């Protein structure tokens, strides 16, 4: 039996699962109907990716619904609560830039055929997420005075959570995009939050899991 908490795939699986839940909170509330469906599609892609990896790690339902917050290993940025549309888009962009490095590496360098299969599918899905979020970043950053202000606020709020997902390749994607969007250039060396590697989370994950897990825990083993 793999010990899930020491498993290197777990941050990816949990990151996709938790961000999928955060995106699903937009259902019926997005700024336009088209965007509502777009965020829903992306949430479903992420859920599929999470399931693919959790199935490799063990019993997917057990791992998703019966683990407590301290056993989750998602990057903290994924669990931060909703915020406005600018926050949602910038977070999705940051996480997609991370996954744009993760999935090709898993697709190319993994022994497990199952993991490779999940990763190869995810490479294409993530390319679209990156494109969708990436096209909104300059639109909002360089849009109206209010959208620029909201994007600047989102950048301030999210930047301290880049630590677990940032790499040289990540900065190479993110910094030019922020520049193109007329957003203030953030400091690469600025302080970042610690990671969830030792089970430390923000207070928000517990509430998210209560929402996500309560039905499965009230009716364990229930089938649709």
């Amino acid at each position: 039996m793999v010990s899930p908490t020491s498993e290197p795939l777990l941050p990816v699986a949990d990151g996709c699962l938790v961000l999928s839940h955060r995106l699903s909170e937009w259902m019926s509330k997005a700024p336009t109907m088209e965007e509502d469906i777009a965020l829903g599609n992306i949430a479903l892609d992420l859920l599929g990716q999470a399931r693919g990896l959790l199935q490799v790690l063990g019993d997917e339902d057990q791992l998703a619904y019966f683990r407590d917050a301290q056993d989750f290993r998602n990057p903290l940025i994924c669990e931060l609560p909703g915020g406005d549309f600018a926050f949602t888009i910038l977070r999705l962009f940051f996480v997609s830039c991370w996954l744009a490095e993760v999935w090709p590496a898993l697709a190319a360098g993994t022994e497990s055929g199952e993991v490779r299969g999940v990763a190869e599918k995810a490479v294409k899905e993530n390319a679209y997420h990156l494109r969708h979020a990436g096209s909104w970043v300059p639109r909002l950053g360089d849009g109206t005075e209010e959208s620029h202000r909201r994007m600047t606020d989102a950048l301030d709020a999210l930047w301290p959570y880049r630590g677990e997902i940032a790499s040289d390749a990540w900065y190479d994607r993110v910094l030019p995009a922020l520049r193109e969007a007329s957003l203030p250039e953030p400091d690469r060396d600025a302080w970042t939050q610690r990671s969830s590697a030792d089970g430390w989370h923000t207070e928000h994950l517990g509430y998210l899991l209560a929402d996500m897990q309560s039905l499965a825990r009230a009716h364990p083993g229930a089938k649709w």
Partner: protein
Amino acid sequence: MINAAGGRDQWPLWEVFLRSRNGLHHQHVGSVHAVDAEMAVENARDVYTRRGEAVSIWVVPSASIVASDPADKDELFEPALTKIYRHPTFYEVPDGVANI
């Protein structure tokens, strides 16, 4: 979106055409709102191709479409209704004719 005067500003409307397979022509499937062409293609992808409906998407600004006036339907379309000889089924093919 609600504008300052309390009215609803809508983004421009785009008509969406999909080609379901190579070799077929694009068919109109509906419309989306979008601020620019790039967003229109993305929105069309998200709204109309969730079940593998397409291999190609066209979007056209709805304002670019020139439409016939519904009030003109009598003069435009009714004359055709009585010209049944324009349908191939009007003609009887003699028994002796092959390859038709």
